[in-house]
C-alpha cells in the first residue's frame, strides 16, 4: 500500500468512529498539556526565584566569617580551627579595593523593643548607611542610618513597617525614643513594606548602627559583609580583591568565605531546574497512561473492525499492510492529541501569566519537545500490540463476524 493511501485509509478509519478517536485524542492532549503547563509552572518558579534573588541587590559579593567546606582543603585553616573575627575594620578596609563601590557590614541578633509599656521581640540588624543602597531597599518615612564613623554611630534606629504598625499604631513613630535591650534609640526612619517576597523581609527588622549592635550582642565578629562591585564584569575582580585584602589582614590566612550572588543564583537555578525536570517526569506519567488508553481503544477498534480486517485479507492485504494501517492510525491520533495538547498547554500557561503577571510561566522548549516526542512514541509503541493482533486474525472467522 502506498504511503498516501495508507494515511488516507487510517484517517478515514479514525474519523469513521468519532467518539473513540476523540477520546483517544483527548487523553493524549491532556498528557501533553499537563507536561506543558506543569513545566511552565516549574520553570516559572525558577525564573521567579532568580528574579527575586536578583532584587536582593545588584552585583553583590558576600563575605562570611569562616572557611566554607566547599572551598577545598586548606592547610592554614586546618591548623587554627577557630577563625579570626570578621571585624568592622576588616569591612571598612574593603573600601580600598578598586572593583568595589560600596560596603555594608551586617550583624544580626534578636532583642526586645519597648515603647510606651509595649514589649515586642524583634530582629536587630546592625549595619551602616550604605546598606540601603547595597540592598536597593526603600524608605517609607524619614532617613536611613547616618553616614559617619563605623566604630561609633549615633543612637538612631530605622524600623520595619510591621514593627511601626504594631508598636506605634496610630501614633507618629518618627522622632520617638524607643528602648532596644538596655539602650535607648531615636527612631529616624521607617522602611517601606517589602511584603512576603522571596528576598529578605525587612518588615520586622530594626536597623541600628553596627557598632552599637555588636556591643549589644557582646560580639566582635560580623555576620556578613555585603560588598557591591562596580558592575557586573567587576564581580570576579571584587571577589579576588576582597579575598586578598582579608587574607592580608588575617596574617595570610584565608579564613573567610567569599561568595558571589551569581553563585547563589546558580545553585537555586540548578535546584529549581531539577524540580522542573521532576515535575515534567510526573506529567510524563500521564502520557504513559494515555498510551495504555491508546492500546485499549485500538484493541476495541480491532474487535469492532474484525470483519473489515477479514475482508482486507480476502482482498489480498498482507499482515504487514494491516499492521501498518493500524499503526498509522494510532500514530495519527497520537499526533493530533499531541498537537491539541500543546495548544491547550500553551493556552493554560498564557492564562497563568494573565492571572499572575509576576509569574513568568513559560514552558521551556526542551519540555515541549519531550512532551510531543513522548506522546508520539507512547502512541506508536502502545499501538503495536493491537496492530499485531489485527494482522494475526484468521480471515475466515473474521469475515464471519458481523
Amino acid at each position, binding site marked *: *500500500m*502506498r504511503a498516501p*493511501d495508507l494515511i488516507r*485509509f487510517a484517517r*478515514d*478509519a479514525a*474519523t*469513521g468512529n468519532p467518539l473513540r478517536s476523540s477520546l483517544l485524542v483527548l487523553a493524549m492532549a491532556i498528557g501533553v498539556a499537563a507536561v506543558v503547563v506543569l513545566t511552565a509552572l516549574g520553570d516559572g518558579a525558577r525564573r521567579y526565584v532568580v528574579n527575586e534573588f536578583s532584587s536582593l541587590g545588584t552585583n553583590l559579593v558576600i563575605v562570611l566569617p569562616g572557611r566554607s567546606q566547599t572551598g577545598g582543603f586548606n592547610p592554614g585553616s586546618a591548623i587554627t580551627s577557630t577563625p579570626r573575627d570578621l571585624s568592622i575594620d576588616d569591612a571598612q578596609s574593603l573600601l580600598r579595593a578598586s572593583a568595589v563601590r560600596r560596603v555594608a557590614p551586617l550583624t544580626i541578633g534578636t532583642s526586645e523593643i519597648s515603647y510606651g509599656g509595649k514589649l515586642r521581640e524583634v530582629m536587630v540588624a546592625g549595619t551602616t548607611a550604605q546598606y540601603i543602597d547595597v540592598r536597593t531597599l526603600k524608605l517609607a518615612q524619614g532617613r536611613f542610618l547616618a553616614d559617619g564613623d563605623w566604630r561609633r554611630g549615633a543612637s538612631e534606629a530605622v524600623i520595619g513597617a510591621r514593627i511601626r504598625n504594631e508598636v506605634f499604631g496610630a501614633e507618629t513613630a518618627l522622632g520617638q525614643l524607643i528602648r532596644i535591650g538596655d539602650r535607648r534609640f531615636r527612631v529616624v526612619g521607617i522602611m517601606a513594606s517589602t511584603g512576603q517576597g522571596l528576598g529578605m523581609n525587612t518588615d520586622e527588622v530594626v536597623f541600628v548602627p553596627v557598632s552599637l549592635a555588636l556591643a549589644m550582642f557582646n560580639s566582635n565578629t560580623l555576620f556578613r559583609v555585603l560588598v557591591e562591585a562596580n558592575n557586573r564584569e567587576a564581580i570576579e575582580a571584587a571577589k579576588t580583591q576582597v579575598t586578598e585584602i582579608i587574607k592580608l589582614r588575617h596574617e595570610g590566612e584565608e579564613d573567610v568565605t567569599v561568595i558571589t550572588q551569581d553563585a547563589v543564583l546558580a545553585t537555586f537555578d540548578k535546584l529549581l531546574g531539577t524540580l522542573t525536570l521532576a515535575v515534567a517526569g510526573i506529567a510524563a506519567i500521564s502520557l504513559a497512561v494515555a498510551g495504555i488508553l491508546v492500546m485499549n481503544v485500538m484493541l476495541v477498534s480491532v474487535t469492532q473492525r474484525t*470483519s*473489515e480486517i477479514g*475482508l*482486507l*485479507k*480476502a*482482498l*489480498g*492485504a*498482507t*499482515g*504487514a*499492510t494491516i499492521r501498518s494501517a493500524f499503526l498509522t492510525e494510532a500514530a495519527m491520533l497520537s499526533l493530533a492529541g499531541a498537537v491539541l495538547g500543546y495548544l491547550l498547554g500553551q493556552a493554560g500557561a498564557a492564562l497563568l501569566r494573565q492571572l499572575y503577571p509576576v509569574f513568568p510561566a513559560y514552558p521551556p522548549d526542551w519540555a515541549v519537545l519531550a512532551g510531543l516526542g513522548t506522546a508520539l512514541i507512547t502512541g506508536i509503541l502502545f499501538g503495536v500490540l493491537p496492530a499485531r493482533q489485527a494482522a494475526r486474525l484468521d*480471515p*475466515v472467522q473474521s*469475515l464471519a463476524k*458481523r
Partner: protein
Amino acid sequence: MGKALIELSGIERIFYLGDSEVHALRQLELRIDPGEYLAVMGPSGSGKSTLLNLLGLLDHPNEGTYRLEGRDVTTLSPEEQARVRSERIGFVFQSFHLVPRLTAAENIALPMTLAGIDPAQRAVRVKQALKDYGLFDRASHRPNELSGGQRQRVAIARATIMQPAMILADEPTGNLDRATGEEVMRLLEELNSRGVTLIVVTHDTVLGARARRQLLMEDGELIHDSGKK
C-alpha cells in the same frame, strides 16, 4: 485435456471443537479447468463455504494438496498467499462486505489500493468498472445509501477490478430478492463468458441449474459431480 486451473487431491478439513471433531471436508478430489462455471450445492453444514474458503486461500487443509495453475499453493508463505489472492482470486460474499465509510468508487478501488497500484491507473479502471456495472451516478455514495443490488454490483466490480482468474461467490444472491438476484447472476455469468472461472455456492436449485457443472456436497463429501466423465 489442457492445463487445469484448480487441482485438489486428498483434501481433508477437520475442525476441532473441544473433544469433538467436525469433518468439514473429506477426501476431496476435484479438478477445475480455466473458464468453467460451477455451482456448489448441498444442505447447510455440508462444507460448501469451507471448500470455497479453501479455494480462495483463506483457509488451509489439514491434509491433501491444492494446486492452483500448476503451483502447490498450500506450502506458500502467508505473504505469497496474499499476493495470489490479490492477483488471481476475486470474492463475492452473501453480505456484500463493503467498507461502510468508503464510497462505492473507493470500495471498488480497494484491492488496487492495497496492491499499491498508482492512483491514475486506479481512477481509469474504477471509472470503467462504474460504467460497466451501471454505478456511474453512485460513485460517491456510501454503501448505506445503496440498494442491495447496487451493493452487490459494487462488490462484483471490486472482485473483478484486479482481473482475477477466478471469482468465488458464496451465496451472492442470498440477501437479494429474485429479480435482483437474477441480475447479479447475469453479471457474474457475463464475466464467465469472457473467460473468468466462476464458482458459485448456492442453495437455490434453479440458480444452480444455470451452471454448466454442478457439485453436490453432503457431510463434507462430494457426492455428485455433473462434470465428471
